[in-house]
């Protein structure tokens, strides 16, 4: 007779505990940096860390591109896959958007500019994602190999297709309705648009994973693809959809970056894929599949962003930036591993 009651905590609670843990790390970093920033501030000057300008321009804006892509990538990682082409897709989307937008007059009305400014990068990103998904599903190739290839192809296209290395071309400017009035819109003296878009996308990711059948299918495939197939799930479709969404996220990141900087270059988003993967993993996504959340991806990105910002605030040598971030990734994942080992005992 097997009367032993299972003692392991519910899977839901495990996820939440992980998010709380990350939130704790964020809080700890914020307290450390806030205290230092308070000490460090010149008399009568605001806290060098805890001030709206640093929080928005120093942390939220630069992390927005990473966070948006980390959520897209988290979907992919949950299915047990990987996408390392996101940085290149971001570049291609931003360049595509710039190429179309620079043909519009500088003072074109918002009603004409915004749909193009938003839809073109999203469309390019979606298309690239669909290509990734199509190759992975159609040819049954390993996602790492496929996106290694497409990363090179997309980056190559970003080098070849535009007439110049940077768009808009010399002497031209993107419509102000997009770059100034929309993306740098001022609320209370701050420019929070990238933060707002990021939060909207986090909400979308949360809704998708938690509330939709599609989200459940994503987890099921990552947890056990064979069992998902045996339950009648269309595994191929679900994967295609997931990679397409990751592409869409990269397109959105491209759009934000284009609007924020007013330019896109062939090197936009270069090397971002590694930071994005790191963010997703620090956020609790398991490369083995089946685990990860949108909130986790946001918090994971935030941890890395805080460390990056901390290097500036603490006036540490920038040369050590990569070393510190690398250590942070390994520590975060080991702590998570240790935590789940302790819980499962």
């Amino acid at each position, binding site marked *: *007779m*097997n*009367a*032993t*009651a*299972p*003692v*392991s905590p*519910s*899977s*839901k*609670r495990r996820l939440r505990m992980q998010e709380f843990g990350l939130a704790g790390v964020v809080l700890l970093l914020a307290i450390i940096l806030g205290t230092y920033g308070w000490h460090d501030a010149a008399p009568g000057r605001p806290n060098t860390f805890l001030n709206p300008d640093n929080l928005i321009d120093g942390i939220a804006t630069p992390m927005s591109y990473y966070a948006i892509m980390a959520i897209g990538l988290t979907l992919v990682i949950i299915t047990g896959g990987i996408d390392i082409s996101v940085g290149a897709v971001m570049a291609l989307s931003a360049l595509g958007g710039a190429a179309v937008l620079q043909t519009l007059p500088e003072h074109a009305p918002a009603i004409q500019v915004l749909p193009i400014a938003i839809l073109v990068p999203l469309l390019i990103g979606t298309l690239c994602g669909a290509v990734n998904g199509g190759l992975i599903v159609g040819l049954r190739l390993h996602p790492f190999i496929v996106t290694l290839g497409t990363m090179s192809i997309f980056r190559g296209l970003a080098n070849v297709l535009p007439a110049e290395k940077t768009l808009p071309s010399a002497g031209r400017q993107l419509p102000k309705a997009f770059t100034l009035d929309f993306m740098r819109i001022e609320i209370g003296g701050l420019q929070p648009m990238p933060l707002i878009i990021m939060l909207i996308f986090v909400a979308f990711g949360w809704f998708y994973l938690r*509330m*939709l*059948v*599609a*989200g*459940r*299918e994503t*987890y*099921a495939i990552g*947890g*056990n693809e*064979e*069992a*998902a*197939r*045996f*339950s*009648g*799930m*269309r595994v191929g479709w679900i994967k295609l959809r997931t990679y397409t969404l990751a592409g869409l996220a990269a397109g959105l990141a491209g759009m934000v970056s284009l609007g924020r900087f007013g330019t896109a270059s062939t090197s936009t988003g270069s090397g971002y894929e590694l930071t994005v993967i790191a963010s997703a993993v620090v956020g609790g996504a398991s490369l083995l599949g*089946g*685990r990860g959340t949108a909130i986790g991806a946001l918090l994971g990105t935030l941890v890395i962003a805080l460390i990056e910002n901390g290097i500036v605030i603490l006036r540490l040598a920038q040369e050590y930036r990569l070393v510190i971030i690398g250590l942070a990734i390994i520590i975060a994942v080991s702590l998570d591993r240790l935590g789940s080992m302790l819980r499962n005992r």
Partner: protein
Amino acid sequence: MSEGFIQFRSVSKSFGGVAALSGVTLSIAQGECHGLMGENGAGKSTLGKVLAGIHRPDEGGLSIDGKPQMFSSPRDALAAGVAMVHQELAFCPDLSVAENLCLGRIPRKWGMVDRASMESRAKKLLAAIGVDLDVHATMRELSTAQEQLVQIAAALGTEPRILIFDEPTSSLSQPEAERLFELVESLKARGLTIIYVSHRMPELFRLCDRISVLRDGRYAGELAGGEMTESAVVRLMIGRDLDHYIPEHLSSAAGEPVLTVRHLSSPGRFEDMSFEVRAGEIVGFAGLVGAGRSEIARALFGLDPRATGEVTIKGERLKVGSIQESLKAGISLVPEDRKRQGCVLGMACSENISMAVLPDLSRRGLLDRSSERSLAGKSFADLSIKAASIEAPVQSLSGGNQQKVVLAKWLARKGRVLIVDEPTRGVDVGAKAAIHALVDRLACEGFAILLISSELPELVHLSSRVIVMREGRQVGELSREAVTQESVLRLMSGVESSPARP
């Protein structure tokens, strides 16, 4: 011949609370070929593995040639002269035959691999069993039979006194098996003590001097020479008194035909299967491992793109080869390998139970969590699933409860045909009874059920009829009245072929 060359003394071994061997005492004489026989799960392979140092007995011990031995690894066993030819072949598929034959002690010269002496050693080993193979070929290029020969050559290369064969013919064709038998006979003639684990009677009768039969992990008896008849063996294999916990299948007169299969074939897997399953009927499928039973389940469920034939469900033709079509037609499959195909171990019970009915539990793609919870709650009550909560991950449940979750998943779909493949594998006795009762109840509720099982008592007691398969063919059908463990066993092992063997 000295009696008791190998002596097992009340050997017990359990895996995760399930006893595989309990108090087995057995003695084997030097130079004999000793058969170990029993049903699936009777413990015959486990006993072989204890001797080969793979499993360490929990209790009891063994001695070889009068010396007590306590092996803690296959290395120890090899040192004592015991080698084993495994059922699953363990090799590095991308290395060459020569490299595999010298694995672990590759000859070196100046710190580098000495290819010449490695190859000559490999050739010598193969020649010793009269096999001519290209030693440069990779293992991947070889047939299963050739791989096995390499394994035997490797085993003999350790110059053993005792050689154990574990189900050596399970993946061999008839002529290949014949060559193996000749090889075993020649090894015996060289004075090796051979332990031959199998459940195929004809080959045991041919090769073995004596046969020991195991039943439910216990020593059931021994037969020698003229006593070795199939009825004697079957009596020893079956004589169990645990049968009473399997309920007699109660559902009465079968209803109208639900599933009709005509000339279903899949090249290399099974051929020309024709049968019918009525509502309320449990049709058992018996056969040895590899006889093609699970393959039929896969084909009906749409997992075999090469399957051809005519399948109709309630008069409607089913397009074979698509899971979606099979599901739509109302076919459900509780697969053989629960952990790989049945459930998502890391997900909550409730999420597993709802997995096949998500479209019904949602509106415009939005998941209705409260009906998901109530479905899970109902399933828990209905099947008395024991877990910390409906949100506990499936991996925290016992095997029996995991299986109930898989069953609950399919019951939620309310299909018409339910295929259950080895429903009680790895499940403890209490849960077994509950699953049997459940399968029986589902039949009473009008499901047409296909029961694939390697456990004869289960088949005999639950089935309305039993279809027996051998080597991918339907070799007989036994009505409820004619079904006994003995009759099924004879048909499936081919002792008494009804239609002539091809």
